[in-house]
């Protein structure tokens, strides 16, 4: 089974039926897989804070949401995480491509990579880092944990996890 299928199987098995995305090259496969699933409403957003607003509404409407985005979006969403998702106590799994780690070809990505974990820690956001494909064995438990505690939870997925960038 491909890693994209495994990830989306876990999302669906945890009753996640509303997903918003802003793409990253590394997330292309998982986004394709979401589009192939009739049980999931995929609503692409134009900016990740907008996407978190959609997720907040969807959750209040009875659907379990998730957001899929790049780690650079942590810089876009701090205010929304603090004043909407955390302040109103809402669950939000965030599947995040962790750009700027080992094997990164684009130097600028490193500039947000060095802040990513520090920002998440400062926000008291539970954070998991998938480095090897077997790390995704914990995804199911992480999703259950997210909806148990009603918090935003970050799942950072680095280049090694996705198998590198291929030819650049």
């Amino acid at each position, binding site marked *: 089974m491909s890693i994209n299928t495994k990830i989306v199987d876990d999302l669906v098995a945890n009753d996640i039926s*509303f997903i918003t995305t802003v793409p990253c090259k590394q997330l292309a496969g998982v986004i394709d897989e979401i589009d192939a699933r009739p049980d999931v*409403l995929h*609503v*692409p*957003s*134009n*900016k990740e*804070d*907008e*996407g*978190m*607003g*959609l*997720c*907040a*509404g*969807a*959750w*209040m*409407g*009875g*659907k379990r*949401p998730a957001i899929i985005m790049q780690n650079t979006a942590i810089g876009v969403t701090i*205010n*929304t995480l*603090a*004043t*909407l998702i955390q*302040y*109103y*106590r*809402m669950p939000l799994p965030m599947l995040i491509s962790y750009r700027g780690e080992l094997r990164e070809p684009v130097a600028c990505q490193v500039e947000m990579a060095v802040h990513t974990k520090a920002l998440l820690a400062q926000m008291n956001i539970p954070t998991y880092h998938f480095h090897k494909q077997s790390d995704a064995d914990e995804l199911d438990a992480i999703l259950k944990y997210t909806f148990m505690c009603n918090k935003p939870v970050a799942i950072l997925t680095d280049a090694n996890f996705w198998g590198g960038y291929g030819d650049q």
Partner: protein
Amino acid sequence: MIRSDILKEIAPILRDQLVVCNIGLPSQEMHMIDDQPTNFYMLGTMGLSSSIGFGLALAQDKKVISIDGDGSVLTNFGTLPTIANNVANNYILLIIDNGSYGSTGDQPTYAGKKTSLAAVARACGCENVVEVAAKDTGKALQEAIDGDQMTIIVAKCESGNIKVPVITMDPVVIRDRFMTSVQA
């Protein structure tokens, strides 16, 4: 007419509807005029009233009205293409366009100058966009509720604020009673 005059006039229409209310004075005014468990008050997060309401409309069948402001729509313009391209016919976006950042002291916005929010919404692909004078807001809102089409209403009014207390209700209480109303 200023924003609070519009809200006073439409409060009876809004009473039984799910309403997501914009940050700052709009929420405080709605809370003072006619507090309802069906009102979701935003206490922060400028810009996301339309997004929260739209996510809610996509997730369930009841009508949802987002009350937004011109400044907040300007800060989250990305919302309009998302709304246009994922039509939810149980969704109404009411933009109270007073041409200013009212809650922070009526600094002018570009919507009060050359920029037409109705034209922007249409350019983004929204199909049912109506711009009305403040006094016609209630009629336009009632028509949108009675109709079965997603509607964007831009209500043009004057800048100006009344004195209102802040909302001291806990956010989790606001959210919990709102979710109970959504499920009812």
